[in-house]
């Protein structure tokens, strides 16, 4: 354990003090005075005899006690001093006292009897994590750990017993949000980005902020990267075992963010595509995880993940068979050869599109089976429409689950986990799988072998939207949409409502993600459909499938296996987290949104208020921009030729009055601002991790045409005291120039390509004393020194998340 006691200092009063990096606690080291004399009384600080003559004057900390004389109270606990005020305490991971707890040592003051009380989101606990409310003997060490965020006060009280020595000492504490320790240097403000995931080819950096950790400036440390451990594993073994080939030593310097390379060439994936690590900054230098160390990862979370090439085949050989169960029950099934050693594995079902065949998706089946999944592609009755397609998805899923004992001679008997199912559908099949889920949830169809809860995730590849989204309703299932901008069939364009697949994405209320791939056609996502790709810079079937395989594997790992280390594949913008196996120059627009049921604070999703100067949260919006408009994300005239009277030009997230997608649009020439005054009930952001928003360049807008490139901008947060913090996110992600496809009007540029930017709130605290518990404004800084100009964008879902 780290003991923060650094030195004892004798004080003039004769008491001694314990100096820690965090606080001094004063205790009297001696009591006493003259022997009791019942003939004397106290007159203030003077002991007087029966005649009124002063016998003794009590000095310094001594007090006069009738019948006793001068007494130095023990202990003296007023005041409690902290070298950093308020003392900063972070939340502790559940079950791990050793993580981020701050030790407070109370030395031997001669007597005990100290009561400890805390007001605020901080616990005082002992080494076992049990609450401590009093200390009956000294010396003692207690630990402070955050239980939330906000101000807290620790009060140490001594009632004095029979003597007039009652006194309180207080210590001001600020429980702060946990900040990640690892990230990467950036060229733009604030010069650093916290990240959770690295590609396996990228170096890992440690970033220690001397502003945040001002109480540690000047202290030496050793930084370790260790394999991720659970809370129980850390409790059992706090030894630090570095995996990088050598822990990094340093001393926290004042000034700017201290950036240290931790791992230059990560290469420990072994037969896997991701690995999780914890980072420990050992301030005690004892090679153990102790209270007072800075940690990133122990417990349910991890410090960072390393992500490999998700398009590479996995470690398992794949077995494949075709079966015929009758009308519309033809299936091709893939599974890992060694599935018996793996135990029951999740099932991934592929429902093809119209005019396609179930035998056209070997690239998905082989890939996912090589990573340990059972994959089944089936005949899909797409000709009549979506309802029939949904039925064949349902019946084929039932069929494989019901017949696993006999399929392939029983090779899969008991080895398909029917409680973990993913549906992947292409085109009409992509809508069909959503319709199938909707039918179960709405009670229109009851499968025999599974329930709606067993459908863990749905993926639609360039789906149609024939039905209203109330009939093809993904409800709250995790949903992933993938499509190509060069699709020549379900083209995603403004002139075809049934092609506007983002309407399904908008309809989903669960966690959802999308990937819109430049230059990919409709049939690039199967083996054998004709080449429909339309537009410039076509990437071809092979490259489209490299990207798709990566996304599908991440989808399966995240939502079927609960492996959150691959969430960044969806949550981060493509240009800021390009897959290792992708060709340099590929362009993909990623969006991500957490489940609505999580009820993260939405600053403005443009759903509830039509006035562009009033946010859906009720916040007042101030806009120093041109052409500000708010409404459904729907191209009004179904033509892409720019027309100022159609401010949602190119938008495809809504088509009918039932669709939910709504947003804002605006433009600027040289610079501009869009600012939201945060309502009081949303001002405390300390419980959240990211500021997120989605935006897209307005297709064929004259400013978009003039810019002819990617677009990003900056964000300034201001707290109630006027303290600012700024992030320019341009090198984390940007909205790509709209795909330069023609048709549907004059000019070039296709449907909207929203990207979601999630800026870690902790990035705003780098070098800034901004108080994120009292956020006042969120401002988008457009153009000027912060990004591209001129520009024209659509904006949506400005919100906080974790």
């Amino acid at each position, binding site marked *: 354990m780290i003991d923060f006691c650094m030195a004892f200092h004798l004080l003039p009063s004769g008491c001694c003090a314990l100096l820690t990096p965090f606080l001094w606690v004063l205790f009297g080291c001696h009591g006493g005075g003259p022997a009791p004399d019942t003939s004397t009384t106290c007159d203030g600080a003077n002991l007087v005899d029966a005649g009124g003559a002063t016998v003794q004057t009590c000095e310094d900390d001594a007090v006069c006690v009738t019948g006793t004389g001068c007494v130095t109270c023990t202990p003296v606990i007023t005041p409690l001093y902290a070298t950093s005020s308020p003392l900063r305490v972070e939340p502790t991971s559940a079950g791990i006292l050793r993580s981020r707890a701050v030790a407070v040592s109370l030395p031997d003051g001669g007597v005990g009897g100290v009561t400890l009380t805390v007001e605020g989101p901080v616990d005082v606990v002992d080494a076992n994590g049990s609450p401590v409310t009093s200390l009956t003997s000294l010396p003692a060490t207690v630990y402070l750990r955050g239980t939330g965020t906000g101000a807290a006060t620790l009060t140490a009280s001594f009632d004095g017993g029979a003597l007039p020595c009652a006194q309180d000492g207080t210590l001001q504490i600020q429980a702060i949000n946990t900040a990640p320790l690892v990230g990467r240097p950036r060229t733009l403000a604030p010069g650093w980005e916290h990240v959770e995931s690295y590609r396996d080819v990228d170096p890992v950096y440690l970033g220690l902020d001397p502003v945040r950790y001002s109480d540690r400036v000047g202290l030496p440390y050793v930084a370790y990267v260790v394999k991720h451990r659970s809370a129980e594993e850390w409790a059992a073994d706090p030894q630090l075992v570095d995996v990088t080939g050598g822990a990094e030593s340093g001393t926290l310097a004042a000034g700017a963010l201290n950036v240290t390379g931790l791992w230059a060439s990560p290469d420990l994936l072994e037969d896997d595509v991701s690995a999780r690590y914890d980072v420990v900054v050992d301030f005690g230098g004892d090679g153990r995880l102790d209270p007072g160390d800075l940690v990133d990862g122990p417990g349910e979370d991890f410090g960072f993940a390393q992500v490999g090439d998700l398009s590479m085949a996995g470690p398992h050989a794949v077995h494949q068979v075709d079966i015929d169960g009758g009308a519309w029950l033809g299936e091709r099934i893939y599974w890992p050869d060694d599935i018996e050693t793996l135990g029951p594995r999740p099932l991934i079902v592929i429902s093809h599109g119209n005019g396609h065949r179930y035998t056209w998706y070997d690239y998905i089946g082989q890939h996912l089976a090589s990573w340990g999944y059972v994959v089944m592609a089936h005949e899909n009755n797409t000709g009549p429409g979506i309802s029939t397609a949904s039925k064949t998805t349902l019946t084929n899923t039932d069929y494989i689950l019901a017949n696993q004992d006999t399929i392939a001679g029983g090779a899969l008997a008991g080895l398909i986990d029917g409680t973990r199912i993913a549906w992947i559908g292409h085109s009409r099949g992509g809508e069909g799988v959503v319709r199938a889920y909707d039918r179960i949830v709405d009670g229109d169809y009851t499968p025999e072998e599974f329930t709606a809860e067993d459908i863990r995730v749905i993926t639609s590849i360039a789906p149609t939207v024939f039905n209203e989204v109330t009939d093809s309703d993904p409800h709250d299932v995790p949903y992933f949409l993938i499509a190509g901008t060069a699709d020549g069939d379900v083209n995603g364009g403004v002139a075809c409502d049934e092609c506007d697949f983002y309407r399904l994405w908008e309809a989903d209320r669960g966690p959802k993600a999308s990937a819109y791939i430049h230059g990919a056609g409709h049939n690039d996502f199967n083996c054998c*459909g004709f080449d429909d790709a339309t537009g410039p810079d076509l990437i071809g079937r092979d490259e489209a499938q490299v990207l798709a395989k990566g996304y599908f594997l991440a989808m399966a790992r995240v939502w079927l296996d609960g492996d959150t280390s691959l969430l960044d594949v969806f949550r981060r913008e493509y240009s800021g987290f390009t897959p290792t196996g992708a060709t340099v120059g590929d362009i993909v627009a990623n969006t991500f949104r957490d489940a609505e049921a999580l009820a993260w604070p939405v600053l403005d999703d443009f759903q509830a208020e039509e006035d562009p100067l009033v946010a859906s949260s009720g916040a007042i919006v101030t806009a120093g921009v041109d052409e500000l408009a708010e409404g459904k994300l729907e191209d009004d005239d179904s033509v892409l030729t720019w027309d100022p009277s159609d401010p949602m030009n190119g938008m495809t997230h809504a088509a009918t009055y039932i669709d939910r997608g709504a947003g804002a649009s605006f433009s600027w020439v040289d610079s501009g601002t869009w600012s939201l005054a945060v309502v009081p009930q949303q001002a405390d952001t300390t419980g959240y991790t990211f500021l997120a928003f989605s935006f897209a360049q307005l297709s064929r807008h004259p400013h978009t045409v003039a810019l002819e490139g990617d677009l990003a901008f900056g964000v300034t947060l201001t707290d109630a005291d006027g303290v600012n913090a700024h992030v320019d996110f341009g090198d984390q992600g940007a909205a790509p120039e709209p795909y330069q496809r023609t048709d549907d009007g004059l000019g070039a540029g296709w449907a909207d390509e929203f990207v979601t930017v999630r800026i870690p709130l902790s990035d705003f605290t780098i070098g800034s004393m901004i108080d994120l518990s009292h956020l006042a404004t969120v401002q988008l800084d457009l153009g000027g020194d912060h990004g591209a100009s001129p520009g024209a964008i659509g904006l949506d879902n400005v919100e906080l998340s974790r």
Partner: protein
Amino acid sequence: MILSLLLLLPHAHAAPPVDDGHAVRAILSATPFELTTSYPYDWSAEHPDVKSGTLLVLDVDPAWLVPSDIHQAVLFVGAVPAERVNTGFPDGRLVVIVPAGVDVARSPVYFSGYDLPERIDAAAGQKALEGAVNRGALPLPMTLATGVVLRDHEAVMKAGL
């Protein structure tokens, strides 16, 4: 040939093409069938039970058969959408099932607009027929083959292929 056919692929924004009566060039064969086990007809909104019908092999202009998830014109025989057994692309040999109740010999075979057959009810089918007749669609010459008795839906589909 494929390339030239692809050039005919309708753009998403294009209005549905109009069948002037020449899209379906000939009925190559017509085979009546009866089923031992009926099946629900998914190619119309009413989903009638199919116990018998006619299996047709058509010679169709392939431009009407380019596979699409959006732009697939509905093929009617009379006022009823026909059930497609294959795509017919690119050779133009399209196999369809026509449920009983349709007088195949006296009904025009034609394409109507883009839609999903499962959404087409009897009224919509009648409207499509009237439109086709107004455009000059006529019944095609045909000869009925000897009828066959088949087990079920799957059997008739396989017979067509």
